[in-house]
């Protein structure tokens, strides 16, 4: 694996100038129209006919500033801090919840990798449950990032596999194979995005800027593993079930019309913790670690076990291996 290739996408410099120009134009617009909006609000606020509360006015202003902000990838540290402060405040104003949104970057010398033991998985779906809770997945639509496929012993055949089993597991004569976003080294989803709203981070995680995504779903068509999910409606998570530990590129609040996917729990893994799915697995089928550390568990699995990747012939280079005992 060539880490250089994954660090900087091709044509990044050109892309940067192009997007920078756009951001500059956006900022000019923002000052112009933002000023007008604030002015208008000030006028209406003075009017006795308009019962707009202070909180309502603050919400509108913050929402407007959020609407005209740039792509996260090209924000300065100050701009990132500002948008995070706005998002945290908006969560408080709109929903009354206290959330913490990180902008933690990739650790140097880290490339995440995942291994899944198909001899061990029993199909309990504890990983699915943990993922839903950890990543604030839409409870109403029932979004799940992870699919566990039930297959007959002897052959990996996704055409005949069933991900909707709901009977006592493990079923006789069957094995279980989990899929999620494989964080490909050469991700087709990133290539097709027309607006640069999804990209690969230096630690190998492909992320989405939910505020830059236009919802065209090209990435969903491009992904050979069906790893991405679309929000057909505004995601709903009860306030008492909300995970307040969030990341800008991970489990923060999504909106209607944008794509989301597994980020290897970016808010946890960048702080040295395991993804929620690996932590929740009662069978020990899930191995997670740093591919660049020769002493890591994932490297031991790759060196000592018979491994394979899904649809390897597509040359997407998933960083997600399957192995058997």
């Amino acid at each position, binding site marked *: 694996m060539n880490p250089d290739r994954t660090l900087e996408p091709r044509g990044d410099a050109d892309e940067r100038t192009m997007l920078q120009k756009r951001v500059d134009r956006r900022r000019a617009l923002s000052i112009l129209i933002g000023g007008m909006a604030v002015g208008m609000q000030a006028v209406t606020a003075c009017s006795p006919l308009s019962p707009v509360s202070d909180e309502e006015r603050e919400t509108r202003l913050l929402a407007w500033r959020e609407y005209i902000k740039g792509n996260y990838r090209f924000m300065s540290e100050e701009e990132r801090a500002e948008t995070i402060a706005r998002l945290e405040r908006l969560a408080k104003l709109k929903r009354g919840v206290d959330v913490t949104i990180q902008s933690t970057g990739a650790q140097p010398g880290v490339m995440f990798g995942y291994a899944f033991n198909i001899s061990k998985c029993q199909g309990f779906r504890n990983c699915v449950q943990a993922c839903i809770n950890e990543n604030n997945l839409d409870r109403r639509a029932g979004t799940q990032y992870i699919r566990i496929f039930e297959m007959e012993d002897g052959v990996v055949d996704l*055409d005949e*596999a069933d*991900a*909707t089993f709901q009977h006592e597991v493990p079923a006789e004569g069957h094995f279980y194979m989990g899929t999620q976003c494989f964080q490909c080294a050469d991700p087709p989803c990133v290539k097709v995005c027309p607006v640069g709203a999804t990209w690969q981070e230096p630690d190998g995680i492909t992320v989405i800027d939910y505020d830059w995504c236009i919802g065209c779903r090209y990435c969903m068509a491009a992904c050979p593993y069906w790893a991405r999910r679309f929000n057909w409606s505004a995601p709903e998570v009860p306030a008492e079930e909300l995970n307040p530990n969030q990341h800008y590129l991970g489990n923060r609040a999504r909106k209607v019309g944008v794509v989301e996917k597994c980020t290897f729990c970016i808010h946890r893994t960048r702080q*040295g913790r395991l993804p929620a799915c690996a932590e929740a697995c009662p069978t*020990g089928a899930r191995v997670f670690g740093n591919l660049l550390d020769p002493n890591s568990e994932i490297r031991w699995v790759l060196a000592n*076990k018979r491994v394979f990747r899904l649809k390897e012939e597509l040359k997407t280079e998933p960083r997600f291996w399957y192995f058997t005992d």
Partner: protein
Amino acid sequence: MALADERVADAHQNIKPVHPAQTGAVCSTCHAADNVEFLALKSGDRVTLDHAYRLCAQCHFSQAEAWAGGAHGKRLDGWQGRRVVMGCADCHDPHKPALEPRIPFRAPQIERIRGHDQ
């Protein structure tokens, strides 16, 4: 099974000796004869229950190798830093080591999905 018949009613009610039944073992195959709080290795050494992996590895050597390397078992403290892992008996009941079958967490709300039309 003789072992089950001879159980002391008030002390071993929760013990289901499936593993001894499968392997033809008796209590003293694993436990020290004079004190069940210690495990007796074939080498003659005795270890505390915290070091059950040394006892288990006497038979389950391939699992022990995978456990030491990282392909078997569970890591507790995250992927970074000091490696803390679960011991054998933290997941497997030594007397009944297999996981119980059960109903899984709810299925995704989709029509039956297939490889090509996912």
